[in-house]
């Protein structure tokens, strides 16, 4: 049986990601970080409600860095 190719199992995009070396993946990840931070993204993570140590009160207390969060103004 011929060896399966990554493209056939996970698609081109993931196959390309897998082909990168760890260092290249790190570099790509850092580019994303640079863009995210340049756009004003906050380092404060989103709440992980499935985490066993998630505490909704803690998240209310720590609305981080003074930046406005996202809120729905109108729902269609």
């Amino acid at each position, binding site marked *: *049986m011929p*060896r*399966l190719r*990554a493209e056939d*199992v*996970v698609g081109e995009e*993931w*196959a390309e*990601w*897998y082909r990168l070396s*760890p*260092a290249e*993946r*790190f570099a790509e*990840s850092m580019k*994303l970080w640079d863009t*995210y931070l340049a756009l004003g993204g*906050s*380092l*404060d*993570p*989103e709440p*992980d409600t*499935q*985490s*066993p*140590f998630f*505490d909704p*009160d*803690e998240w209310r*207390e*720590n609305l*981080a*860095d003074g930046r406005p969060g996202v809120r729905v103004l109108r729902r269609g």
Partner: protein
Amino acid sequence: MGGQACVFYGAAEFSRDLDLMVLVHAKNMALLRSALDALGAEPIAVPPFAEEYLLRGHALHFRCRREDVAGLRIDLMSNLRGVGNFEDVWARRTSIETDGVVVEMLALEDLVRAKKTQRDKDWPMIRRLVEESYFRGAGGAEFWLRELRSPELLIEAARTHNELARSIAADRPAVAAALRGEREEVAAALTAEESEERRLDRLWWQPLRDELERLRHARRA
């Protein structure tokens, strides 16, 4: 041991926190406290910064206030379900150098074990991590047969490493199904495996969640 390690090993996660596994030892804890102070890291929520909580399996949570890392969350753990003690994990670690700094990471097999949690987001991550290892030809046949979560790859691995697969099949029904070449059976066995791991993770966390709830209650009182 979190998102950054996942990126290194081939999955992709845009993780905004920093998860560290630490050795609970008086000297190390003093160094850790000093490093956290340098980042302006303040404890958030419960439990408090104390060795006993780390040893029992809790995570300690901090948020940095220093301007260049403001808001960054750091989670510390020392005892991960299914991963073994710190000394063994340390012996298996991967070391990388980035910008002249050596960074120590969980070995791939430990990262995969640590990701077997009750959270939805961890399971696709495990699949990606093991797939990358398989396509790269690294990690070894036993690791793939025990950890692959992609039915077609598990079937291929079972055919290629038939003898080893037969010896593992008794422990892992998904491998038994892979030996029969039954894709749907493999998929069903993998789903059952995931459900069982999620159940075990909830069981592991239950006493810790109860303790967290008591600590929260005491803090609010």
